[in-house]
């Protein structure tokens, strides 16, 4: 393929991915969150815009688009403005290696990298740079505290997440996500690797800064954490990055542990979406059920529980794989 065709393919793919993530993940995700929180707290949630409030986030987005972008006094303007791009971009990069389904022409994936799983770990670790930039650039103590907390938290939880990713790659004998899904034809890895699945889900919750690990944007102590000072469309872009990251984590969990697009009768893409939303529901369920950790509990939990457990799991898996290959 000539290089300019590749370039056009990449640009078109990026636009499709961006719209997809913006509509499916951010807009529908926010609506779902409000509906589920309403349901769990015995209220109705958004109800007036569109049928059953379906168009509520669309209206919110339009409102945010028209708002003024306020830059705080003596903020670091360059960093303040760049951080907005870094966070959604890093979230968007995660989607390159997630296979959404399969068609007659091969798996539906942006690019089946032969280092897919490590690539996912790498790009999801880029978000923290954007968060630190936002916290620093805002010239606001709450934002800075939120940014620093997030750096400590995400760096700690990347390790158990990486270890559980490696465990699955070890089982499948490949780092490519498509191969991993194909290796789950007989048995989903959630059955073979329940520990890795739980560790991944916990670490993913921490990586996307959701309750019970939402120290970064703890409303009662830090206003909105690192994006306290952002308004208008910039605020919306942070929301997009956050929900995009959450959907990417859920998509990766589906790919690695729930057999990806595999399932009987229904078309593959539909299976993927069903599993994705089931996991998203778990994330939201946890958010509206559990209270928040303290920062020391949070770091202790990662370093003293999750990392040893996932290391032991990795060693045990490696041993079993070695014995089976003999």
């Amino acid at each position, binding site marked *: 393929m000539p290089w300019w065709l590749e*370039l056009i393919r990449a640009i078109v793919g990026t636009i499709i991915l961006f719209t997809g993530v913006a509509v499916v993940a951010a807009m529908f995700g926010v609506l779902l969150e409000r509906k589920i929180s309403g349901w769990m707290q015995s209220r109705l949630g958004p109800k007036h815009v569109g049928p059953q409030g379906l168009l509520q986030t669309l209206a919110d987005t339009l409102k945010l688009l028209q708002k003024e972008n306020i830059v705080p006094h003596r903020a670091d303007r360059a960093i303040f403005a760049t951080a907005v791009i870094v966070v959604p971009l890093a979230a968007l990069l995660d989607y390159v290696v997630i296979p959404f389904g399969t068609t007659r022409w091969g798996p539906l994936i942006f690019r089946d990298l*032969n*280092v897919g799983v490590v690539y996912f770990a*790498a790009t999801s670790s*880029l978000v*923290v740079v954007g968060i630190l930039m936002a916290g620093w650039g805002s010239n606001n103590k709450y934002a800075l505290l939120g940014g620093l907390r997030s*750096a*400590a938290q995400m760096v700690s939880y990347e390790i158990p997440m990486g270890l559980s990713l490696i465990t699955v790659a070890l089982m499948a004998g490949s780092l490519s996500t498509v191969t991993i899904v194909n290796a789950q034809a007989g048995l989903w890895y959630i059955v073979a690797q329940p520990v890795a699945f739980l560790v991944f889900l916990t670490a993913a919750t921490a990586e996307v800064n959701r309750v019970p690990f939402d120290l970064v944007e703890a409303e009662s102590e830090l206003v909105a954490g690192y994006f306290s000072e952002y308004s208008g469309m910039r605020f919306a872009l942070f929301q997009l990055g956050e929900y995009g990251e959450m959907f990417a984590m859920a998509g990766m969990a589906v790919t690695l542990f729930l057999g990806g697009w595999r399932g009987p009768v229904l078309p593959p893409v539909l299976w993927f979406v069903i599993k994705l939303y089931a996991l998203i529901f778990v994330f939201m369920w946890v958010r509206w059920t559990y209270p928040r950790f303290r920062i020391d509990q949070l770091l202790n939990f990662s370093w003293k529980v999750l990392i040893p457990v996932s290391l032991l799991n990795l060693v045990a898996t490696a041993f079993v794989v070695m014995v089976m290959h003999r």
Partner: protein
Amino acid sequence: MSGEAIAFYVLAAVTLGSGVVVVTSPNVVHSAVALVPTFLGVTGIYVLLSAEFVAVIQVLIYAGAITVLILFVIMLTEGGTGIRARQRNEQGAIGAAVAAAMAGLLIAVAVRTPWARLPGTLPTYTPGAIGQSFLGPNLLVFEGTSVVLLVSLVGAIVIARKEE
């Protein structure tokens, strides 16, 4: 010009351009943030050199971890107050001369040496080949690195800990 050449020049421009910002910016935070595009540019260079595994590890370790560590330390030490402080010592002119001389020397050597080429092709699945190499001919280096990693882990904790 082929696509690969265009990609090389774009990536080189990104790497060196943000490298200049890293080196010259009077604001340390800007320097640290400019490290990210520098590292990502080098990542692209690795991809061009068909070293995908090194490229992802570069993003994971450099862009994702070391930059964050550097930003963290800047914010824990002087942070924004450093904007008013002098960032450059008196050796600006000498340093520039030394760097330019070094660059001239290296480039002259790189251009004038007729580089030999051994036979063979790059394996298509590099992570597997790297793993084989680490657990085969390079096992001693691998073990040595892991010992250094452990020592530096302990050392960093001991040094950075507050005395009670």
